[in-house]
């Protein structure tokens, strides 16, 4: 399993106030939350968010909170203060559609930061981040941090241009940025794996660290390509979760070495070789 620097703050449970909820096109939303006492997060950590649970009436449908990567804003709050934390999500199911409806001033219940952060690349390595769909949200802070010390390529994939979440923010980073869309509406026509292929082909083993977050089939494909090329591949898994802090055992992922690992606690960041991809639903 991957090592990572220690979490720099214990998770908190709080009511976060919605500062802004911006529709990004393609069903995507960027939610800015004001979080009292935010302890800060490592790039790659996530929060559990319940939308609509703490309006005037407690409503238990939907019941469970949803895991969401901390997109931007991992700085801890000053003593007694608040930090703005951003979440990028797509309104697909019950939880995210409710989240899409929350308006500034409303509050959402939140637990976090949870999970471990990304393990650092080797000091001389190039870094390549591959994001698919909302998986991209996990990568922004990491791209920002890596870009300070090493060359970074970011490959983003989505079905169509509008669904390339956070594109403007990644563009502003000034890193090597390439896109692939399945309808060709932006960048290369096809999947993001098509962008990865030449990059891996060029790379010497050991020269590159790959960080991937997106739909399972995409992560599986990237992982196989990386293994073939002998390149280290780190993935951020997106399992269903009930608690997010290691008590329900609902997020278990099968491991190559046998047994299961809890994505919410040992993950969501894994070395791709440690994950038994065949056992993933």
């Amino acid at each position: 399993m991957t090592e990572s620097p220690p979490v720099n703050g214990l998770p908190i449970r709080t009511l976060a106030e919605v500062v802004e909820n911006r529709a990004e096109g393609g069903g995507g939303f960027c939610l800015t939350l004001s979080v009292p006492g935010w302890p800060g997060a490592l790039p790659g950590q996530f929060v559990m968010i319940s939308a609509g649970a703490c309006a005037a009436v407690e409503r238990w449908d939907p019941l469970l909170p949803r895991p969401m990567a901390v997109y931007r804003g991992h700085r801890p709050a000053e003593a007694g203060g608040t930090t703005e934390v951003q979440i990028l999500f797509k309104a697909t199911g019950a939880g995210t559609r409710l989240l899409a409806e929350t308006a500034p001033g409303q509050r959402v219940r939140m637990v976090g930061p949870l999970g471990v952060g990304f393990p650092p690349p080797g000091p001389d390595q190039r870094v390549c981040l591959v994001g698919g769909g909302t998986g991209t949200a996990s990568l922004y802070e990491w791209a920002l941090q890596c870009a300070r010390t090493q060359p970074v390529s970011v490959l983003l994939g989505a079905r169509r241009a509008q669904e390339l979440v956070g594109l403007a923010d990644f563009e502003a980073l000034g890193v090597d940025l390439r896109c692939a869309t399945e309808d060709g509406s932006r960048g290369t026509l096809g999947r993001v794996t098509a962008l990865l292929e030449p990059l891996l082909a060029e790379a010497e083993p050991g020269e590159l660290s790959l960080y991937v977050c997106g739909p399972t089939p995409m992560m599986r494909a990237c992982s196989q390509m990386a293994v073939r090329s002998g390149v280290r591949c780190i993935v951020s898994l997106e399992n269903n979760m009930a608690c997010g802090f290691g008590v329900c055992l609902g997020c278990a992922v099968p491991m190559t070495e046998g047994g299961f690992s809890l994505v919410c606690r040992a993950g969501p960041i894994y070395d791709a070789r440690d994950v038994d991809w065949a056992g993933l639903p």
Partner: protein
Amino acid sequence: MSGPVETAVEFAGIPLRNPVLTASGTFGYGSEFGPFLDLRRIGGFVGKSLTLEPRFGNPPPRIAESPAGMLNAISIENIGVDAFLEEKLPALPEGVVVIASCFGTDPDDYARLAARLSDSPRVSGVEINASCPHVKSGGIEFGQDPELLKDLVRRVREHVSGPLIVKLSPNVTRIAPMAEVCQEAGADGITLINAIQSMEVDVETRRPVLANVLGGLSGPAIRPIALRMVWQASRAVDIPICGVGGIASAEDAVKFLLCGATAIQVGTINYVNPMAAGEIADGILAYAQRHGFSRVADLTGALELDRAPVS
């Protein structure tokens, strides 16, 4: 009334600071809640069900969501009794009441396990999980057959001198006879209910959502069923009852106490709000105060019935 309210209760011979416990499988081994909740604010916790050997659970997906509920098919994944006794227990702060849950495939397993746990000075009581709704053998079979259950409890009782609690399955035609055999076999208390056997389907893939096909339904959806069973069981036996199933607020907890429970357990809601158990403990106190009860223990069975009830 504004005098101080006594919150302490005794359940199955275990003195508790207040009647709020947390349910097995929803509270890990206790330490996971460190960041959210001082465990000394609640009566105690029941640990994840343990087996003699460490055990892996079912393959994923293991959870699904349903209206006001969730399904799980974890299947008693646990670190095993040794690791629990050697690693988890010593890490807990002083003064935390620990009830250990045990699970086996035959009465001998249960008896050995319960005896080992009961021998630990840090374990205040042992809860027999005779009701896991999604394990291929063991568990639910005991919880569904009064003869098997009686035999199981009797065997464990022989090996355990400390407080012995039996957790019953809701997947039965009548709960009262199950409670009665526990009492006859020497149990000190009864916990009910476990999750209700259920199923969920993904219409897009046309497959069961859970890899195990069947799972257990828990959460607010099942609360009225749990409440009914607690009421029926409390009328059938004299040993104390711990009510569990869908408790999400202090009012919910009070309903179980009124229906005859001596203590309650907070389960699924721990996932939604890891501070819930503490808030519920505070809320029960406030309720007792508001309604002029000088002891929380007096809420137990304080339900008023207008008419002869239909059981």
